[in-house]
């Protein structure tokens, strides 16, 4: 697109003919208005031309040939230097002057196209910044940052758009980047405080209210890597359950379980919701297995986790969980054996097999806020 646009600019006019009247056609056709110097490739012809001039620095034709090769490689500045050096040796030589003028013109041409390209990019940035600041269009903020990643003003605009959208965590990220780029910027510090205040407000709303508003608040401050990530995930699960959205609730509990294992309320909720939703994918089976282990049903939990491993061997952390559960099971077996031995010594009767569930689990939802 950009290339065809540039070519169309060229074909509409400009330098392509007038500038190149004195140059060979090959040189002109190779030029696209914004080439970059490619002398590092050291094409044979360029190397030969350079060596030829080094051997005979006073040879006009050798100098002109090298300049031409440099122009072909889009090394216009180098070509100008070579020709300028020749001006003292060949004063008033028309061919050298013409070639020098052409090389200088090609530099100007490149600058001209660069200017137009920059205008296009600047317009895009302005458009994105306008949408970002006026309409709170976060996507436009990101588009602007893709073009100007280290622009503090755009980062501030993005932060503001995110605050308008009640997304303080992302806003804090944007302000963090801005602060790293401009640590003394007072605006950044003030806006960071605003974002932190909003975050606290939303966390309170998440914990102390119900319904969609609470859920939106929880989701806007939830991050898996935040210190209260587990509590927020669990709360999101509770709110989804309250809103009769079992699939989403299960997702939230699975997230909570992955952040902190061993919470019995979460484990109970996962067992109930895996059953009620009928999910049998690797993530659900893994969470079910982990929950069973939490609730003391290690053998059943291992079975479920092994099923998950068969479905998705690469599921993060699953192999470690299985290892841990296997160790736990061995410990449990050893404890049972030792308890049995004690009983045997006391002459008491054997107990029922260990892997039989010794308690029943209700499907009660962990519905209170305290969860």
């Amino acid at each position, binding site marked *: 697109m950009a290339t065809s646009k540039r070519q*169309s*600019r060229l*074909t*509409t*006019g*400009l*330098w*392509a*003919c*007038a*500038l*190149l*009247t*004195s140059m060979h056609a090959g040189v002109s056709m190779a030029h696209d208005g914004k080439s970059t110097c490619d002398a590092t490739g050291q094409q044979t012809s360029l190397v030969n031309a350079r060596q030829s001039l080094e051997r005979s620095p006073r040879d006009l034709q050798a100098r002109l040939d090298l300049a031409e090769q440099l122009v072909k490689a889009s090394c216009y500045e180098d070509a100008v230097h070579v020709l300028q050096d020749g001006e003292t040796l060949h004063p008033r030589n028309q061919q050298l002057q013409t070639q020098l*003028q052409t090389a200088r*013109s090609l530099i*100007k*041409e490149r*600058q*001209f196209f660069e*200017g*137009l390209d*920059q*205008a*296009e990019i*600047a*317009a*895009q940035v*302005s*458009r994105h910044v*306008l*949408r970002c600041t*006026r*309409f709170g269009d976060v996507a436009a903020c990101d588009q602007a940052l893709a073009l100007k990643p280290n622009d503090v003003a755009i980062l501030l605009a993005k932060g503001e758009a995110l605050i308008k959208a009640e997304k303080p965590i992302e806003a804090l990220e944007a302000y963090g980047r801005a602060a790293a780029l401009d640590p003394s910027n007072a605006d950044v510090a003030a806006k960071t405080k605003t974002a932190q205040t909003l975050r606290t407000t939303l966390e309170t709303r998440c914990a102390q209210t119900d319904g969609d508003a609470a859920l939106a608040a929880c989701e806007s401050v939830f991050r898996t890597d935040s210190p209260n990530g587990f509590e927020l995930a669990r709360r999101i699960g509770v709110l989804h359950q309250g809103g009769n959205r079992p699939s989403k609730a299960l997702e939230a509990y699975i997230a909570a379980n992955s952040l902190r294992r061993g919470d019995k309320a979460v484990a109970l909720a996962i067992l109930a919701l895996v059953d009620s939703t009928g999910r049998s994918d690797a993530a659900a089976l893994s969470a079910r297995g982990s929950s069973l282990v939490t609730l003391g049903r290690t053998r059943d939990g291992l079975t479920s986790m092994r099923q998950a491993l068969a479905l998705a061997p690469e599921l993060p952390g699953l192999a470690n969980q299985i290892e841990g559960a296997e160790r736990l099971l061995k410990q449990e077996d050893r404890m049972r054996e030792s308890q049995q031995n004690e009983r045997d010594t006391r002459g008491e009767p054997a107990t029922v097999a260990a892997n039989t569930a010794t308690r029943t689990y209700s499907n009660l939802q962990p519905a209170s806020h305290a969860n």
Partner: protein
Amino acid sequence: MSICRWVLVAIALTGATGCVTRPPTIAHVHIGHALSGVHVTPGQEGYLLVAEARAAVVRDLARKAAAADSLPKIKADVASAVEATTSNDGFGLKHSLVQASNHITFAATSEDASTNIRASAPRFAEHIVRVVERCELIGLLGKDVAATTNVSEARTLAAEISTLAAQNMSGEDSDGDGLIGGKPPEYGMQQLRRELDQMIAREDPPYRVVDQSYLFNLVRLPNGRWVFDKFKRGGNIDGYK
């Protein structure tokens, strides 16, 4: 009798002198394509004249769009403003201005170009960039207007387009120093016109308005040289391509 003869000779000589007009320089003809006329534009006007006219049309249309109440009206006016700004085939503002700059550059690269023109052309090419940038932005915002279903958003965008269009005419004061168009990044068409007028005023020998027969009959020979077509077959402006 002899007095009469001398008078007749004198008249003949002065008359002859009046008839023998030197053709303009090739550089001046290229400048004429920007400032006076060129046979490919609407009304065969020079590229800069077309650009100035388009800038005024865009300003008026954008102003109308910004004042409109209904979404369809805003969209229609903005679409027309965008067309007059960015169209290539219709010689929109951006295209016409870039072409004007191109022809000034042609002038600078002509063998008979003065030092003044050679020095001024690259500056002019650099100084058109802000207007080009505003044109690009008008085009982008125009697309947003076309896409939106929200009248409030459309109105905000139309107001922004209107501001840009006005700045393209008169320049802006982006650095807040109280001077509109005080420096190239603030330029509009008025400042660009002034810059070209100043370049022309510095020409020695002076620039004179180029006759249409020269403007429209410039031919580029296969060897790259520009000459006037004696048979006046309309030149080969396509030679620019």
